[in-house]
C-alpha cells in the first residue's frame, strides 16, 4: 500500500515535470489561429515553405480551431494567451477586432501595399477599419448561392435553374414527388444549428430582397423583422410541402454535404468559398453540381451581402508586432493568394490577384462562384446587444420546422421587433452598444452610402 502511494507520488512528479517542460526557442515564434478548415492542406504547405526559407528567423505556428472558435479566441485574450495573428472573417470581426483587440496597421502598411489590397474601394469603416484605423487586410470574398444537383434536375426535367421563391418551391416539390421513393429529396437545410442554417439563407436573402441586414434597417436605426416574413414563409413552405430531406432539424452542414455528395438532395444553399473545396477533396463526388443565383422574389431591393474585406488581424497585445506584420503580409502575399485562388479555395476580391492568375478551374466550372456585380460587402449592424429570450434564428427556425408554439409568423416577427429594439435602446442607454444609423443608406450601394 505504501509502495503504491509512493509510486503514485513519484509518478505524479515525473508527469508534472514532463508536462511542464518548456523548450527554449531561438526563433521568433508567431502564433496564428484560424477557423478556416477547408484550405488546411494548402496552408500547411505555405507555412512549411515559409518556415524553411525565411530569412528573418521567424517560425510560424499555425493552429486551426473550427469548434467554438470565438470562445477559444476570447478565452485566449482574456487570459493573455492569445495568438499573435488571428482569423477575423465572419462575425468575429465585430466582436473581437472592432471592439479593440486588433492592432492598427496604419503605420506599418506602405502605400504600395494599400494599393495592392485594392485601395479605397476595399477599405471602409466597420468593414476592416474603425475610425480611420485599418484593422485587417482584404483577402477573399464569399457569399451564398443556391447549390443544385444538375443530374437530378435533368432526371425530372427542370431546364432552367429556379430563381424566385415560387420556382424553388415548385422545383423542390417536383423532385420529391418523382424521386422521393428512391430516397431523393428536393431541398435540405442544416437546421440543427439555426444560426448556421439561417445565416446562409435568410441573412443574405433579406439583404437582397428587403434591404435589411440581420433584421436591422440602417436608415431608420430600428429592427424590422416583419419585413422578412416572406423569406421565412418561403423556407417553411417547403417543409409543409414535404419536399425536404428527412431530419433537417438535426442535420449539421457536414452530414448534409455527405448526403448531397451521395446524390440524395436536389438543392440547398451554401457559401461560394467553401463548397468547391468540400466536393473536390473532402467528399469527392460524381454528382454533377453547380451554383445558382440566390433566390429572391423577382425584385431586387439591395445588393446581396458578401463576407469579405477582412481576413487576419494582429493582436494588439502581441509581443512581436513587426514579426507579426511580416507574417501577415506573407500570408496575404501575391503568391499565396494566387495559389489559393487558382486552387479554388478562396474567391479573391483583389483585382491585383485576378490579373496575375489563371482563371481557376473552379470558376471555369462554376461561374457563379466568382464575385458578381450584385454582391457587395455590407457594414456592421449594432453589436453587443443583450437580447432577452431566443434569437431570431431560433424563432424563425421554430416556425420553419412547424414546431408548436411557433405558428403565427406575424406575431413572432412583432415580438422579435419588440425584444430586439428594446435591447438596442437599453444598450445605447447603458453605453454598451454604439448606435449605428445612416439616414442616407442605400441598399443598392451599401459601402458608398454609409452616411
Amino acid at each position, binding site marked *: *500500500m*505504501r509502495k503504491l*502511494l509512493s509510486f*503514485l*507520488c513519484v*509518478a*505524479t512528479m515525473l*508527469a*508534472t515535470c*514532463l*508536462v*511542464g517542460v518548456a523548450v527554449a526557442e531561438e526563433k521568433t515564434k508567431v502564433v496564428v489561429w484560424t477557423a478556416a*478548415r*477547408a484550405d*488546411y492542406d494548402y496552408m500547411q504547405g505555405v507555412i512549411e515553405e515559409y518556415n524553411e526559407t525565411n530569412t528573418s528567423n521567424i517560425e510560424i505556428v499555425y*493552429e*486551426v*480551431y*473550427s*469548434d*467554438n472558435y470565438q*470562445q*477559444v479566441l476570447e*478565452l*485566449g485574450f*482574456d*487570459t*493573455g*494567451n492569445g495568438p499573435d495573428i488571428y482569423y477575423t472573417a465572419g462575425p468575429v470581426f465585430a466582436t473581437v477586432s472592432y471592439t479593440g483587440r486588433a492592432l492598427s496597421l496604419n503605420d506599418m502598411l506602405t502605400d504600395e501595399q494599400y494599393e495592392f489590397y485594392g485601395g479605397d474601394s476595399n477599405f471602409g469603416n466597420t468593414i476592416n477599419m474603425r475610425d480611420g484605423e485599418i484593422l485587417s487586410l482584404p483577402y477573399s470574398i464569399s457569399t451564398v448561392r443556391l447549390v443544385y444537383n444538375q443530374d437530378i434536375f435533368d432526371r425530372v426535367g427542370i431546364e432552367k435553374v429556379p430563381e424566385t421563391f415560387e420556382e424553388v418551391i415548385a422545383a423542390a416539390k417536383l423532385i420529391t414527388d418523382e424521386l422521393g421513393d428512391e430516397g431523393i429529396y428536393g431541398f435540405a437545410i442544416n437546421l440543427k444549428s439555426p444560426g448556421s442554417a439561417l445565416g446562409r439563407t435568410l441573412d443574405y436573402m433579406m439583404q437582397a430582397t428587403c434591404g435589411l441586414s440581420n433584421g436591422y434597417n440602417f436608415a431608420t436605426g430600428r429592427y424590422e423583422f416583419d419585413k422578412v416574413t416572406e423569406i421565412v414563409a418561403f423556407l417553411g413552405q417547403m417543409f409543409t410541402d414535404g419536399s425536404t430531406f428527412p431530419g433537417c432539424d438535426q442535420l*449539421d452542414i*457536414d*452530414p448534409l*454535404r*455527405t448526403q448531397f455528395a*451521395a446524390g440524395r438532395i436536389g438543392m440547398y444553399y451554401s457559401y461560394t468559398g*467553401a463548397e468547391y*473545396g*468540400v466536393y473536390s477533396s*473532402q*467528399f469527392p463526388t460524381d454528382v454533377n453540381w453547380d451554383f445558382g443565383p440566390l433566390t429572391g422574389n423577382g425584385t431586387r431591393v439591395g445588393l446581396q451581402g458578401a463576407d469579405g474585406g477582412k481576413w487576419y488581424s494582429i493582436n494588439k497585445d502581441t509581443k512581436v508586432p513587426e514579426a507579426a506584420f511580416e507574417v501577415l503580409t506573407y500570408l496575404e502575399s501575391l503568391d499565396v493568394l494566387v495559389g489559393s485562388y487558382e486552387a479554388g479555395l478562396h474567391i479573391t476580391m483583389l483585382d491585383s490577384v485576378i490579373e496575375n492568375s489563371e482563371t481557376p478551374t473552379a470558376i471555369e466550372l462554376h461561374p457563379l462562384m466568382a464575385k458578381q456585380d450584385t454582391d457587395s460587402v455590407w457594414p456592421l449592424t449594432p453589436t453587443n446587444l443583450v437580447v432577452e429570450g431566443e434569437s431570431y434564428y431560433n424563432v424563425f427556425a421554430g416556425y420553419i420546422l412547424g414546431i408548436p408554439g411557433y405558428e403565427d409568423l406575424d406575431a413572432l416577427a412583432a415580438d422579435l421587433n419588440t425584444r430586439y429594439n428594446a435591447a438596442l435602446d437599453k444598450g445605447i442607454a447603458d453605453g454598451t452598444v454604439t448606435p449605428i444609423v445612416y439616414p442616407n443608406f442605400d441598399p443598392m450601394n451599401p459601402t458608398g452610402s454609409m452616411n
Partner: protein
Amino acid sequence: MTKYFSKGIGFILKFVFLGIILLFTIYPVVYAVLGSLKTNMQLVLGDGFLPKTWEFKNYVYAFKKLNFFQYTYNSFVLCIMCTSFALVISSMTGYCMARYDFPLKRILNTLYLALMFVSLGSVTIYPVYMMMNSFGLTNNLLGLALVITGGQATNIFLVRGFVRSIPAELDESAKLDGCSKFGIYWHIMLPLSRPIIAVVGLFAFRGAWNDYITSMVFTIGRKSLQPLTVAVVSLRYSVNAAAEWHIMTAGATIAIIPILIVYVLTNKQFISGLTAGAIKG
C-alpha cells in the same frame, strides 16, 4: 405439471428480458468498435453492420496524423495526477476527521455536507478558470488535474466511514510506541484501508478519464493538451471541413479501451465501492 410449465415460461421470459437488456447495453459499444473499421462513407450512409473492408488504417491515421498518441498520453497523465491527488488528500483528511476532534472540525463537516448537495453547474468553470490563470496554471495539465480533483467531499466521507470501523486500540498502541499522528496514518491506517483506497482511486481515475466539460474549457486554446474525450468530440468539426465519423468511432474506441481494461481488472472494487457509499449513507 402446470408448476413446471409456469416455471418454464418464467425461465424463458427471464432470459428474453435479460437478452434484450444485454443487447441494449452492449450494442453501442459494438457499433463503435465495428464502425471504427469502416470507411467514412459506409459509416455515415449506414451501409451494413459489419465493415465491408476492414480499415485498420483508420487507427493508424488517428494515431499518426491526428496526434492521438498525444491525446492518449494526456489522458493518462491527467488521470494519474488526479488519482494521486484524490488518494493523498482524501485519505489524510478522512483519517483526521474520523480520529480526531479539532477546532475546525465541525465547521468543515457542515460545509462539506452542505456543499455536496449544492451544485451550481458549469457556472463555476469561468471564475475557476480566471483564478487558475492568475496562478499561471491554465496552460498545463497540472492545473486541470487540480480543478478536477477539487474538494473531494464524497471521498472524504467514504474514507472517514471506513476508518471509523478500525478499532482505536491500534492507534493507541502505536502512540505508545512513540508514533506521531502522521506515522499512525502512514504505518497503520493506510495498509488497513486498502479496500476503500482502491475504491477512491478507481472512482477518481474514472472521473478524470471521462471528464468532458471542464477538460474542454481548460484546454480550449491548446490542442496539444487535450485529453481523449475532448479530442474525440471535437472531431465532429474537424480540420477537414467534413466530419470524420470513422475516425471519431476509432477515437471513441481508443477512449473506451483503457478504462474497460481497468474495469475488468478491478471489477469487484468498483461494485463494493458503490455499495459502501449506499449502505452506509
